């Protein structure tokens, strides 16, 4: 944080001023983030009559049920599979798209224009962008029609839509932007003189990539990873729609549980998922001080 030039205040008054400025934020986050999380935590310990009624109390029955079920392991494995695949693809595409924009496009205005071109879909509906794959991937979709037409296949491929492949495609389509933006941001800050110096010192382009670009975009990669991982692990509608009901994830199972009013088991599974997510995010945060990174 940069030192502020405002009139010097005593530490106590500056604490008060800081809190006054963030108080509206806190007033929203406490009832709509902290309280709901506590409610879910409490509900996970309650007993249920099976019809949506909750009996206040303390039982670990829901956790035992969730942890003992073979389904839980399957759900977590499926979720981790989707998360890892999406992470790899978004990272590769996001890194090279950002690299291209920062280091290969010579005209700065053009680079910003192309960058905006990538970001525009972020501001449109995710659900619409997801269903927009149907006319392409469907059994009678464009890709099957094209493959049939050139004689590469004789029967329409059925694994294109309503499959795990479609789920990953939809995720990568939606989330690559979350990689591009932070990586672009950290790459744009790399001093070009550093690279000039490396070239003068005889470094190959691969060396520059390995020793300068990748280490210096680490914070962008970390931020992008946090976004992608937390969104994929918290998602349920892409899995539900794009797998055609064939696959499930932890949160889509949670959604089904809520649908049949199994609040305590749903809450217990949500608490476990949140713990896993917190563990992953804090692991990433240990490698990079994102607050320092964003505000510098």
């Amino acid at each position, binding site marked *: *944080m940069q030192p502020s030039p405002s009139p010097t205040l005593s530490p106590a008054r500056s604490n008060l001023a800081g809190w006054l400025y963030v108080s509206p934020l806190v007033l929203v986050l406490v009832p709509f983030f902290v309280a709901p999380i506590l*409610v879910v935590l409490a509900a996970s310990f309650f007993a249920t009559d099976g019809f949506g009624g909750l009996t206040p109390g303390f039982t670990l029955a829901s956790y035992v049920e969730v942890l003992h079920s073979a389904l839980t392991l399957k759900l977590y494995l499926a979720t981790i599979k989707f998360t890892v695949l999406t992470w790899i693809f978004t990272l590769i595409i996001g890194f090279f798209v950002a690299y291209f924009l920062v280091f*290969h496009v010579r005209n700065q205005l053009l680079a910003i224009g192309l960058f905006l071109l*990538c970001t525009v879909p972020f501001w449109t*509906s995710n659900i*619409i962008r997801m269903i927009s794959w149907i*006319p392409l991937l469907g059994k009678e979709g464009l890709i099957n029609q094209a493959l049939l037409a050139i004689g590469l296949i004789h029967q329409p491929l059925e694994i294109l839509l309503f499959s795990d492949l479609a789920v990953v495609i939809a995720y990568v389509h939606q989330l690559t932007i979350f990689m591009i933006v932070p990586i672009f941001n950290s790459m744009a800050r790399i001093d070009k003189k550093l690279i000039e110096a490396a070239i003068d010192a005889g470094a190959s382009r691969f060396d520059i990539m390995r020793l300068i670009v990748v280490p210096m975009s680490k914070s962008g990669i970390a931020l992008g990873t946090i976004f992608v991982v937390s969104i994929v692990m918290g998602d349920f509608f892409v899995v539900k729609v794009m797998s055609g009901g064939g696959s499930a994830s932890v949160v889509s199972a949670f959604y089904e549980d809520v649908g049949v009013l199994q609040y305590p088991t749903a809450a217990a599974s949500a608490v476990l998922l949140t713990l896993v997510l917190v563990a992953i995010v804090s692991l990433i945060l240990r490698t990079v001080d994102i607050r320092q990174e964003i505000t510098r």
Partner: protein
Amino acid sequence: MSAVLADMPKADISKTTTPASTKAIAPSKGGRPWTFYVLATLFAAYVIALYGPMFCIYILSFQDIRGGLVFPMKGHSLHWFVDLFTQARTGDVKGSFDRSIKLAVIVTVITVVVSFLAGLGFRKRFRGDTFVFYMMIGSLVAPGLVLGLGTGLLFQALGLDASWYTSALGAQLSWTLPFGVLVMFAVMSRFNHVWEEAAYDLGASRWQSIWLVMIPVLAPGLVAVALFGFTLSYDEFARSLQTAGSLNTLPLEIWSMTLNVTSPSLYALGTVTTIVSFVVIGASLGTIVLIQKKRGSQAKG
């Protein structure tokens, strides 16, 4: 996204001061390295994959009554748009559209004001600032559906009715505010403190320095925050699902349509919502460019 919007003025300056030759890793005079062509192809493929599918559904939404969900196009008409707003089986599209726009406007106003204030607060360290910061990050990464359920249960426990302008509003703010504050961080970090200092030296009060110096200088960044607030709320789904009460917002309507409508009406709805998004994006970017231009001409004249 935030970065580029905030970077715009900076980019213009650096363009004039740094020679273009330092831009590319490879020598910029003469031929491009082979990697340029590989990466340019990758970039083009990415952009095509990004926009291609969306354009498919926009095109398919203009079929006539025989239309189906896949190519080839069957005729040209606005049949499915009329169908969308008149047929009962597609649900209350008009009502949910209305509600979503109103909600997005409310969310936008609150997001801009609260993010701006929080951005001011976070400029200096204060006791507990890290706690507030991580609370915000937590709100951003928490699974939306879980938070939504918690909010729904909380309202139920307190005996309040869930509705789009109470519980859903709060649930959406828990999503738009962290984004807004992060954008504010990026914007604030490029704010030149000399201007504020000058205002104080000339005898401005804290309030005057905010109102007469900071807000005009940060205006493009505030427009960017507004863009985030509006579009994130307008498209928000997971957090609204358990909190919107009996009346749907537009994304919830689209969600229920994806589950039971199998006609190009669905695509027509996609086209309509995208047009709204594009109008908002265009207006925001236009405003930012206009502010920058005005500044440029003032600086010259």
